[in-house]
């Protein structure tokens, strides 16, 4: 008889790391597919480039570090990083942006820290920030919808040429995102009531029929995927709810003060990568706090930073910066914001029974 003697428990929830990664991949799939359709073949090539780079870098780092390659490669975390990186890039970005991003995310963002579970920053967000700072032109070349198989969309070979050779007529196709447009126009002392009409259509924004990163345009699909993750209990509500509420409250407050200078909450919630960020990037388990209170603080911090950067910072969009900055605060949050222990006060002292004991069921 070969009896195993480790201590209890001897049963286990039907859950595992690959399963969690798989569920997140499924949840982000609709938004990703929508982006692929909206931006056509070049977007697909870019996605393949980031995913392959991430997997290759992961395998290379693991074998250099002498760790088992197969179980870690199959846990799905590198694949997920690849997809999440692609959805946060401009859809027609050149191949080397994707490859550099993948390298940066996996090698610098994850393996240098010691691999899965050890990294301080969300790898995809860190890569996006690094790319944006290093290659501002490529990282802000946006274009409107070019849906697959439509008349003005590039075919398969033109698409490959765009990814590997550059966009032939950049000025002809590219334009600013709504957040970028608002920012430049405000800089020229135009008021929002002049800027927005004709540019910001909430309906199109919700549907995702706008320019933007590969997977961030369809807010409703990001919301759908996030809601599904909540329902499957892969993520908890604290971070997304705190983040979105904070942005909405700040935007609402400032908009009331000066509607010509500060955009309303709808514009903030429906543009850029906020939904995707709130449900898929800020909730990355490894780099966010583990306690419910910590998660509330973290989410609120992300939301506040997003609003501050969008409104007063040097970039029109701030989700990646906000998440990365709050990632840095996570160890601190986890150290100080612990749950209250049963039978103890918040300070850790024994907590006396306050009410005089009454019989259960009797009204107090």
């Amino acid at each position, binding site marked *: 008889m070969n*009896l195993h003697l480790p201590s209890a428990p001897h049963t286990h929830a039907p859950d595992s790391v690959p399963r969690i990664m798989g569920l997140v991949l499924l949840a982000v799939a609709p938004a990703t597919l929508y982006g692929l359709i909206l931006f056509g073949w070049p977007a697909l090539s870019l996605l393949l480039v980031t995913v392959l780079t991430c997997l290759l870098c992961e395998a290379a780092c693991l074998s250099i570090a002498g760790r088992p390659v197969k179980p870690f490669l199959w846990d799905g975390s590198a694949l997920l990083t690849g997809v999440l990186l692609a959805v946060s890039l401009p859809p027609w970005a050149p191949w080397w942006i994707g490859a550099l991003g993948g390298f940066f995310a996996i090698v610098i963002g994850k393996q240098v820290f010691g691999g899965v579970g050890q990294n301080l920053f969300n790898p995809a967000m860190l890569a996006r920030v690094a790319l944006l700072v290093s290659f501002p032109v490529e990282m802000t070349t946006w274009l409107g919808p070019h849906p697959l198989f439509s008349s003005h969309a590039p075919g398969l070979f033109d698409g490959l040429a765009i990814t590997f050779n550059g966009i032939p007529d950049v000025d002809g196709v590219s334009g600013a995102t709504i957040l970028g447009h608002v920012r430049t126009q405000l800089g020229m002392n135009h008021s929002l009531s002049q800027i927005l009409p004709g540019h910001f259509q909430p309906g199109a924004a919700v549907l995702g029929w706008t320019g933007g990163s590969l997977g961030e345009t369809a807010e409703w699909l990001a919301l759908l995927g996030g809601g599904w993750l909540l329902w499957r209990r892969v993520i908890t509500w604290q971070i997304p709810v705190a983040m979105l509420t904070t942005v909405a409250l700040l935007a609402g407050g400032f908009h009331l003060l000066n509607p010509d200078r500060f955009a309303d909450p709808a514009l903030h919630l429906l543009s850029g990568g906020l939904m995707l960020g709130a449900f898929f990037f800020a909730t990355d388990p490894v780099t966010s706090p583990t*306690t419910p209170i910590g998660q509330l603080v973290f989410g609120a911090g992300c939301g506040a930073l997003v609003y501050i950067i969008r409104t007063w910072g040097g970039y029109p969009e701030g989700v990646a910066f906000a998440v990365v900055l709050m990632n840095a605060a996570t160890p601190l949050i986890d150290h100080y914001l612990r749950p209250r222990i*049963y039978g103890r006060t918040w300070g850790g002292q024994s907590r006396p029974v306050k009410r005089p004991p009454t019989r*259960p069921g009797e009204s107090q």
Partner: protein
Amino acid sequence: MKLFDFWGGVHPAGQKHLSADQPIRIMPPPARLHIPLQQHTGLPALAVVKVGDSVLKGQLLAQGQGAVSASVHAPTSGVITAIGDFTAPHVSGLPLPTVTLDSDGEDRWLEREPLPDPFALEPEQVAAQIAEAGIVGMGGANFPAALKLNKARQAKVHTLAVNGAECEPYMTCDDRLMRERAAGIVDGVRLMLYALQAPQAVIAIEDNKPEAIASMSAACHGDPQIRVVVVPSRYPAGSAKQLIQLLTGLETPAGGRGTDTGILVHNVGTAYAVHRALRQAHPLISRIVTITGGAVAEPQNLEAPIGALVEDLLAFCGGVTGEVAKLLMGGPMMGQPLPTWQTPMVKGTNGILALTAAEAQLTTPSPCIRCGRCVEVCPMGLMPLEMSKRARCDDLDGALDFGLIDCISCGSCAYACPSHIPLVQYFEYARGVLEARERAEQKSKETRRLLDQRQARLARAEQAKAEAAARRQAEKRQAKAAKAGAAA
């Protein structure tokens, strides 16, 4: 009645269907029983029989000694063939003093005197009878029951919470007991209430046991003191701290007792044992155990004699089929893995679980992804990931700072961890090191005390010597002076 809620918790698959519909079968004593003298918290009982003695069923084998201890009785009639060390039901497999009893096959009872009406006795006397019967907490706590009742009476507890939650997966012994012997349990509850001098009792049963709820409700129908409370099925609802929180919303203070909240928790099995002891002069020599698991041929609930070996119990249930990957005493969440089949069941044994490899889910752990599941499900409000991280690198003070001593080892965290990290194992390890450290500190303190004592003794001796010498000198001088005076 208004229920509150406890924190965290998990919903492991019940697996109770394997044995829940099997009525309790009485297992006749096997040819040989091994009865450990320590089946309880506290000091081991002191043997009052010798090798070669013939004993009758129910006869005292060993007397409890000291403040916290419990007596042990013969589960059947026969001859004592050995008193010595034998494998104890513990993962360490370390032996405990054990009486070996060879059955004579007659199962002859000791002559018993008719019992007085317990309600005509003083509460203390009722508790004394419970102590005499060797009754300990049968939900796994193993604390002597009478002592717990006396302390709770002194603490003026107002409610006895009778624990029939049975939240451990696979286990059905309490369920069957409540279905089949409800009247006995309710009588035992009344006796305990009397010993406690408490006004009321609630019997808490998880909502996945409708038959038990029905039969217990019927048994206490019309008694204004006792009622059945249905609690949600969520592990660990049956843990004393969580049950108290569920019933009252109060928390047992850290380092305090459950009775600080005005509640005393006792298991349904204990209530039944009290009924038997006080009404039928039947000391605690048998109990209901669930023999189950995918590897058991015919999972069942047995009333088995204390001291029966696991292999006897399994053989009575048709033996095992196929490979047993894990053999446990108790349920899968908190049960003890057993090192051998030759381990005796004891008073606190609620079940034997023989798991197949598929059930045991032997997996390799992967790195923590900080998902926070463990924090979410911990009923004590701890951060298991931080505790285990520190325990693993021997940072005991760090683990203590994150609440190691508040952990009740319920296993919810490790159950939920997607990385399959054996969190509880790290906590047990850290506790072991901590205990060793305390023992070492105790020892060095003791050594220091002895050393100080010795030095003090030596110093005293020195001083006495010096004083004696001084005295002699003085006497000499005096004598000299006297002589000189006489000469003058």
